[in-house]
């Protein structure tokens, strides 16, 4: 659907994009992820033909955006960072205007606009002046605008920024629905959001693509797989003695005590062996209650921090680097986040693993959270 080749953008001395290449398949939902100023918006602005690249080319459905802008742009709907709405128009007037400039045949306009309004849930606002709408509704009108004409490709720059949690969930729902008929590219600096809706995540920092994969695989690429963090009520000596008879558990590392009369232990199994059952039976036979048991897989936030942090510290890039085990650093990382809200973190990890099977569950979970 879209092919980006060797895109480079310079603003004077500043290199905003550094030789970026990627392609997006039909019907894919791709998420750009990166800190502020990473080059997400610049990439999107170039892809939609709003600004020019210094070097490189963009093909939309095989059409070059620079050589044949009208044909290429006819296939794109774009929601920029700020929704491009006219405050002094009513929602209906605005959508009709957009339909006109996108050359939607007037016979289809009424029906199409009604459908889009239903999808973005702005029917009640049809007669309201856009300047009187709340930020969330303006954003939805902006999204409706991008959908007018049902372009094959919909590009959205931080579609959920500034929305309240309920609106964010609704917005994700809309994006998922869009993904069934259209190719969607969206950007965000929030990990969770991208993980919740995207088929593929592309991590961008300082104008470079650092990683590009499914959210799940990004997580496993960096995780240690079979390492568990366990909080056990009891004394350290007793626990060490109990663990001795279990040979499946290869590595035992006592971290210390975070709760009164408990001990935190990091346990590692041999070669991807699942050690959870072993831990359970070991502790139950020795009457040592397990208060917490969690995988040391990295959450997407940690992966993100690690990848972007790496590029800043070492200037190295690429997934090759990521797949190498970095036990020491990982342990440190997880140790730090341990101090913060544990329940939140474990929930995030849950979310990620459940996401593939059951998206709806995640939503409910978030709603209750």
């Amino acid at each position, binding site marked *: 659907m879209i092919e980006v080749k060797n895109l480079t953008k310079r603003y004077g001395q500043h290199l905003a994009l550094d030789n970026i290449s990627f392609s997006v398949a039909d019907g894919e939902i791709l998420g750009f992820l990166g800190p502020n100023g990473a080059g997400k918006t610049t990439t999107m602005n170039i892809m939609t*033909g709003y*600004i020019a690249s210094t070097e490189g080319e963009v093909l939309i459905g095989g059409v070059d955006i*620079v050589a044949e802008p*009208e044909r290429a742009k006819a296939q*794109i709907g774009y929601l920029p960072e*700020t929704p*491009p*709405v006219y405050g002094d128009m009513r929602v209906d007037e605005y959508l009709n*205007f957009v339909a006109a400039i996108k050359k939607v045949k007037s016979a289809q306009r009424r029906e199409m606009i009604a459908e889009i309004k239903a999808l973005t849930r702005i029917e009640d606002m049809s007669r309201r002046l856009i300047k009187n709408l709340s930020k969330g509704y303006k954003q939805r009108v902006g999204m409706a605008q991008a959908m007018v004409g049902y372009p094959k490709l919909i590009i959205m720059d931080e579609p959920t920024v500034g929305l309240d949690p309920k609106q964010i969930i609704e917005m994700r729902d809309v994006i998922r629905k869009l993904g069934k008929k259209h190719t969607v590219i969206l950007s965000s600096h929030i990990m969770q959001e991208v993980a919740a809706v995207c088929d593929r995540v592309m991590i961008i920092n300082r104008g470079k693509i650092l990683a590009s994969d499914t959210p799940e695989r990004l997580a496993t690429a960096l995780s240690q797989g079979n390492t568990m963090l366990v909080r056990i009520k009891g004394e350290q000596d007793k626990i060490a003695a109990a663990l001795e008879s279990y040979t499946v558990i290869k590595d035992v590392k006592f971290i210390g005590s975070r709760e009164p009369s408990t001990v935190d232990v990091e346990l590692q199994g041999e070669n991807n062996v699942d050690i959870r059952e072993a831990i359970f039976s070991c502790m139950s036979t020795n009457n040592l209650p397990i208060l917490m048991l969690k995988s040391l897989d990295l959450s997407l936030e940690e992966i993100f921090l690690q990848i972007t942090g790496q590029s800043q510290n070492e200037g190295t890039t690429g997934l090759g680097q990521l797949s190498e085990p970095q036990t020491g650093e990982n342990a440190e990382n997880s140790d730090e986040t341990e101090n913060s809200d544990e329940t939140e973190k474990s929930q995030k990890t849950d979310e990620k693993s459940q996401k593939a099977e059951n998206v709806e569950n995640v939503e409910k979970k978030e709603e209750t959270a």
Partner: protein
Amino acid sequence: MTAIISKELRTYFTQMSGYIFLALTIFITALFYVFINVFQLSPNFHFVLSNVTILFFIIIPTLTMRLFADEVRNKTDQLLYTSPLPIWHIVVGKYIAAAALFMIAMAVTMLFPLISANFGTLPFSQIVGAYIGYILIGLGFISIGLFISVMTENQIIAAVATAGAIFITFLLESLAAGMPADATSSLVFLIVCSLILGGVLYNSTKNIYGGIILAVLGIAVSVAFYLVNPLMYDGLIPGAFRWFSVFTRFDNMTNGVLHLADIVFYITMPIFFIYLTVNVIEKRRWK
């Protein structure tokens, strides 16, 4: 393009600037009509039109200042420039909307000579000539305002710069009188013009050789003519200023004389500035 035109016309009447424009134009023209025609019992409406050229300072900026500046400030330019509309449709659409509003005001002022016509004979050719001139100048100035609006995202700056540009065209006539008329200064003037032309060519095509060749060619031709016949260059600078002076040509028209050259000059002005506007937008996006 009709979508852009109707949207712009709507905006004029939802943001007050359309009402302000119409009110100012009609009220001040009426005022001059009362003082010059009614009180003096004169049928010469073309004198009224000559006097209200002063209005261009105020009315043209109110008409054009927001055209592009406002889009950029609201970030709605992203919608327009990423839509499948060609850029020139957007520019021409906006120009036509502003021009249409100007024509509406003109149509209303035509009531005044019609009122006078009830009380005697009017100098028909002078009035028609003055109207043609006045409208053409207005349409030209609107294109200048449009061009300036695309250069800034601040409406106030756009308005002040447009008023300034119109003011300079007023001054050209008086400036011409003060310019040196001898052949040597004319040569210097032509050399500077050649350099500027070369620079413009380089700037718009990024072709350094093209720019240099054009500049050198211009200088060579100017010097050659200077060496062959320096008399040709006498009075060239004032002549050029007068040639560009919008109002010198207008005087011909209020006398009821229509020169083809004048009409062509007035029609070229909007075409030139619309072309420049389209180019500025395109260039910003493709360089």
